[in-house]
């Protein structure tokens, strides 16, 4: 049923930029490739589709059946023939497929980790491999995650005690100290029962970084995680975010990818008990030669849970690439599920390419609602002419379009300084590539 799953797939942009992914896109499963080609050749630049897999026409293997293991040998080296890697330019990420230690040197770590723990939180502690709760939510699904886990002796553990509501966020500043330097990391974020807190992970500088972020969202607690990929132009980053959401708990998970040469974030949210809620927000801006991939998996394994996914990306410049794959699985037991996912891409210039693949698998008919939308729009010369014919100069016209496009998402980020930072970053991205 791969075909049905991929019905909502679409991409837009210059097909010649396929060269940058080369064999990766070319080796898609035959059925999938047909579906993609069909979507790509559609004349309309806008596409709305509902790709539903309904009970009775179930996929042979659902998204939840993917193998999970801490054992490196259990994970094949990524190839373009593997579904979850088929859009990824493997060569650019190759360093992160090697089982290599973190390149820390005497008094000179590969990456600086500065952690600011707010008042009311537990003191920072560390967890060895296998030391709970480490490994209770995140069990690696692919090789880079398995390596990051195995190569991290001490995972940072940030905990909000039961019933505690923290006003100030945890701030984790991760600064890479060299594009040639390898880093592995595992981070465990935990909100205990009925607590609430925000965690900001800010990535700057440069590195080859394999990272796991494990989120234990305790019963009735509220966790917000904001991961900012603000890397320098030559950084390479693969991140696996995996959350287990407890009874009546809420996770707001925000990914912002602006920097880096190649960034891939795989965010998984699992409902372990009824009443949970996940809000996944993402915002990315890919410019010349930049590759940004975001994958999501929301696993509705418990009844009466809600998930809401909204990712938006803008692309500008030659060989700017983005990939978004959103998997939602509503298992048999997940009655009363309500889910919606949305991905919007805005292609600002020729030579950029966005791929967007929403997948919705539904194994029970007893749901409240399930839907998705994926669309890619192009900001072209005619739109530019229209705006300029109303007196609006070119840079202002682009700003207008991009600001409007992202505004609704930015408003949903609760930390004002991050909202401001984002608005400013988008302005500078625009100004930079306009020159």
């Amino acid at each position, binding site marked *: 049923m791969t075909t049905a799953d991929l019905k909502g797939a679409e991409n837009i942009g210059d097909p010649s930029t396929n060269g940058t992914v080369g064999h990766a896109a070319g080796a898609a499963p035959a059925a999938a490739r047909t579906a993609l080609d069909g979507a790509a050749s559609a004349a309309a630049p806008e596409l709305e589709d509902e790709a539903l897999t309904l009970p009775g026409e179930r996929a042979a293997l659902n998204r939840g059946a993917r193998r999970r293991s801490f054992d490196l040998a259990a994970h094949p080296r990524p190839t373009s023939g593997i579904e979850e890697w088929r859009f990824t330019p493997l060569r650019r990420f190759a360093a992160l497929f090697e089982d290599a230690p973190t390149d820390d040197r005497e008094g000179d770590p590969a990456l600086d980790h500065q952690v600011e723990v707010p008042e009311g939180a537990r003191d920072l502690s560390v967890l060895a491999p296998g030391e709970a709760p480490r490994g209770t939510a995140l069990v690696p699904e692919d090789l880079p995650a398995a390596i990051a886990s195995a190569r991290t002796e001490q995972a940072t553990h940030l905990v909000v005690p039961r019933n505690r509501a923290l006003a100030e966020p945890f701030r984790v500043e991760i600064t890479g100290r060299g594009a040639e330097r390898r880093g592995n990391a595992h981070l465990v974020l935990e909100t205990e029962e009925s607590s609430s807190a925000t965690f900001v992970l800010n990535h700057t500088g440069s590195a080859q970084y394999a990272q796991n972020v494990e989120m234990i969202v305790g019963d009735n607690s509220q966790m917000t995680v904001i991961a900012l990929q603000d890397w320098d132009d030559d950084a390479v980053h693969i991140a696996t975010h995996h959350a287990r959401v407890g009874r009546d708990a809420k996770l707001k998970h925000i990914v912002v990818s602006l920097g880096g040469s190649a960034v891939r974030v795989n965010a998984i949210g699992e409902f372990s008990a009824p009443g949970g809620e996940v809000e996944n927000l993402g915002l990315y801006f890919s410019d010349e030669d930049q590759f940004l991939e975001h994958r999501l998996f929301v696993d509705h394994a418990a009844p009466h849970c809600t998930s809401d996914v909204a990712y938006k990306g803008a692309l500008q410049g030659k060989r700017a690439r983005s990939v978004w794959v959103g998997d939602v699985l509503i298992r048999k037991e997940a009655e009363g599920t309500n889910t919606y996912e949305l991905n919007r891409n805005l292609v600002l210039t020729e030579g950029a390419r966005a791929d967007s693949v929403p997948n919705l698998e539904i194994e029970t008919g007893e749901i409240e609602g399930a839907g998705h939308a994926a669309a890619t729009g192009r*900001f072209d010369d005619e739109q530019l002419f229209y*705006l300029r*014919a*109303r*007196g609006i*100069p070119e840079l*202002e016209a682009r700003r207008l379009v991009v600001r*409007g496009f992202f505004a609704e998402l930015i408003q949903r980020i609760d930390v004002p300084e991050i909202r401001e930072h984002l608005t400013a970053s988008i302005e500078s991205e625009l100004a930079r590539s306009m020159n």
Partner: protein
Amino acid sequence: MSILEIKNLHATVETPEGTKEILKGVDLTIRSGETHAIMGPNGSGKSTLAYAVAGHPKYEITDGELLLDGEDVLEMSVDERARAGLFLAMQYPVEVPGVTVSNFLRTAKTAIDGEAPALRTWVKDVKGAMDGLRMDPVFAERNVNEGFSGGEKKRHEILQMELLKPGIAILDETDSGLDVDALRVVSDGINRVKENTEVGIMLITHYTRILQYVKPDFVHVFVGGRIAEEGGPELAERLENEGYDRFLVGAGS
């Protein structure tokens, strides 16, 4: 007081078959308060004239002059022309993703005037103009032209003309594809702008119908990339009865 002077204007476009001359020496002068109907058969170059004056990059001006209040328009960029007082209501307005009508109008007004409009009067002006064009207020929060019907797109173009108050407005087949009710609403809008401002209008149309609602001072018959005949409103009546056949004979130059 505005004056648009088009003198011996020649323009070409690149086609797969090579460079093609579309405008072959257009002469036309439009002053404030005047309404000039430009009528002609399909393919005569009427729309090209509109886009060439607005500065669309597809057309190259190979000869002639274009002056607005004595200033050389050909030296101006597209947005400079708009800020100088030119307005083009397009036949096929494009969708602009992510930009609401209200945001678009305010940004355009700010660009044209060089300063942001006073909030209170602006909100009132927008509401008044939208009411006049029988546009639902929710319209303001929709993205520009996204999912608009043909009639909504044309009303939106006239709404912009009302709010931006250009010196010279070119209306490119604003009447095409409208039913009688929509045509009346759009024409009323055009007439309101004529009453309330000094706008000079170049009304490009294929059909005589709109001239029952928007009265032209001058009628120009456009054939083969130039103006073939000029006259008063009576010329429109003659075209109504005779069609363009008379001009097409021997116009294949």
